[in-house]
């Protein structure tokens, strides 16, 4: 009986750790999505300053990067 109690306590402990890890990853990804959004703003500013310098590919990459970071955060939330 004592052994069973110890095992159940241990399993709760591991789950707690996993929840903390998940929370930390979601928080980190939230900050990263903000960083990705700032990059898109930065690209807008750069393209406005220097017209004609690869505007479409650079914008597409910046927005694609933000989209992927949102998707990764979605994956983290679903874990």
């Amino acid at each position, binding site marked *: 009986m004592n052994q069973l109690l110890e095992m159940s306590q241990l399993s709760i402990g591991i789950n707690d750790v996993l929840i903390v890890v998940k929370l930390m990853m979601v928080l980190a990804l939230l900050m990263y999505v903000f960083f990705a959004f700032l*990059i898109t703003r930065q690209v807008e*500013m750069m393209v406005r300053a220097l017209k004609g*310098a690869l505007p479409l590919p*650079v914008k597409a*990459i910046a927005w694609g*990067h933000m989209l992927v970071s949102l998707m990764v955060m979605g994956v983290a939330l679903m874990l």
Partner: protein
Amino acid sequence: MEDVFENTVGKDSEISQEPADETERHPVHREPEEYSDVIRNEPIAKSKLSAFVVKPKEIKFETQDSEEKILLLLRKHVMTNLGWIVFIVVMSVLPVGLTYIPIISDLPGRYQVLILMMWYLVLFGYGLEKFLSWYFNVYIITDERIIDYDFYSLMYKRVSEAKIDRVEDVTFSMGGAVMNMFNYGDVYIQTAGEQRELEFEAVPRPEIVVKLLNELAIEEEREKLEGRVR
């Protein structure tokens, strides 16, 4: 008949004198090809990723005047990107060793996959930021001005500029084996304006940049002497 001939000659001479007076009053602005060996002889770069672009056709900057022409657009030499490219390559191979780190290898498989996704995402973001910083931090030489575009951190922009006629002294330096091997260096431009010194860091072929600036300074002097100042 004689009168008619004389009259015609008289009219012709009047007509031919008019444009000469007009030119004296409003002297023509010379094209850069007329006074600059650099612009005449340097080939036009076709790649949009070049660090040394003579007369870029499609590029315009926000404060450019309608008559102002970009003569040279410079970025840091491509070799200056080597450090972060190598860093990214090394870091992208590193997750192979992740399974040997006890804390990560103890996590369930789906957590490990997520950590891997985050790793490559951050790496990509870092590379993108470095590329943008290299690509958009440009030095522009027009027929009237020198402009230095600096984008610091994520949202900060600084544009320094100096009129060609305010340039007092131009020097360049190349130090180290790599700089000499790939022919790039720093160009320092002393001006009489508020912005005392402009610095073009690690630009390709600094001697050509200095030569062009000298040619432009001479042309500005000539423009002043001949009253062709825009």
